[in-house]
């Protein structure tokens, strides 16, 4: 399934782009692939949203889904 993965904050900066288009079956597989490709993600606490809904469990992805990688911000 082709999904759009969008990045925020420090993740966007380190990856160097706003989004990626990826072929992947579910969020766990997606994260495994990303953590291998971008090792900084292994030490960062971030959350995933699928189609603008925060998720905590593995989620099956469908064609055209949007996955967001959300790091916490602390600045004020």
């Amino acid at each position, binding site marked *: 399934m082709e999904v759009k993965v969008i990045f*925020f*904050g*420090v993740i966007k*900066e380190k990856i160097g782009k*706003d989004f990626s288009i990826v072929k992947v079956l579910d969020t766990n597989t997606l994260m495994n692939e990303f953590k291998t490709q971008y090792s900084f993600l292994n030490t*960062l*606490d971030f*959350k995933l*949203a699928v189609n*603008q*809904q*925060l998720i*905590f469990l593995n989620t099956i992805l469908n064609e055209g889904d949007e996955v*967001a990688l*959300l790091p*916490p*911000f*602390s*600045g*004020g």
Partner: protein
Amino acid sequence: MEAKDFLRYQRQIILPEMGDTGQLKLQQAKVLVIGAGGLGCPVLQYLAAAGVGQIGIVDFDVVNLHNLHRQILFNESSIGKNKAHEAASSIKKINSKIRVEIFDTLFNNRLAIDIVNQYDIVVDCSDNFETRYLINDVCVLLNKPFVFGAIYRFEGQTTVFNFQNGPTYRCLFPQNKHTEISCDEAGVIGVLPGIIGVLQATEAIKIITQIGEVLSGKLLLCDLKTMNFQHIKIERNESLWKHLIPSNMEELMQRNYKINCETEDNIEEIDVNDLENLLQSSKNYIIIDVRERSEQPKLNMDSILEIPLQELEIKWNDIPLVENIIFMCQKGNRSKAAASIFVRKNNDKKVFTLAFGIASLPQHLVNKNSEKGSK
């Protein structure tokens, strides 16, 4: 309502949703603003202008020149003075009718327990995760809504947590496992906290006046580079955090909100008392000030080496390996980053960092001459 008050607020009173009733609700409301920095300034400015009856301001830090590009309640004569006091005098000029309570100390467990219950709403304008988790937990225990705002470079996040049994910060990030990235370190575009702060003030006003739909259950993400604004839906999920928060105020008082870095065994965080003891008992110490060289106040101690955090990767070798190496910055965030860099380079060396930084030091440890008019 007095005639003069009616005139002052006339343009919002004539809104059908607001009316006299809404204005009266604002006058009776008590809002606690934690942090009078980039986010806190616009929040305070608009809440004062809107006529919120009682506003509490918490900030222990002093105004620096590099704050002025975004912390719009301050001016050049504020430099070196406490932010809570400066913000208070600034908003009283906007609206002399409101009551302002000043807390020029750190927002710690004790203060949280003492003051949060006296307010209806908390606005989280803090700049570190420790404070954000403390605000979350005290608000959950006291059943207070809190308006969250956080910024990073060109991006901001805002939402209302713990509103009518809505999600909390721990429904988003259950545990504090995060590395701090402050505006001082990462940089920030000056208008960003203005935008996010004004959105926070808007939500506070909506909660008080019961106008519209409160931004609860949705995290608003704003990217100023693209002007993309989008919502992420969050649900309240107590199973994620019920076991993580203190079960009552006694437990909250005992809770340590500092991040426990398991890998950083060689870094010990000390407070002001530990520091004074250390300075008195040992001559064998060096203080590494990792702030930018322009930051105020300067330190009034012996053996100080100024190495801004960004230069540390190159200059770490300049630090003499004396018994006690103490890293300091303005608020205690950058010094932790500096200590980790240094410990990585000198594997066995144990070092100290000053919790809550130079802003928390008593007068005699900072150089009064550099404070430009501080009391």
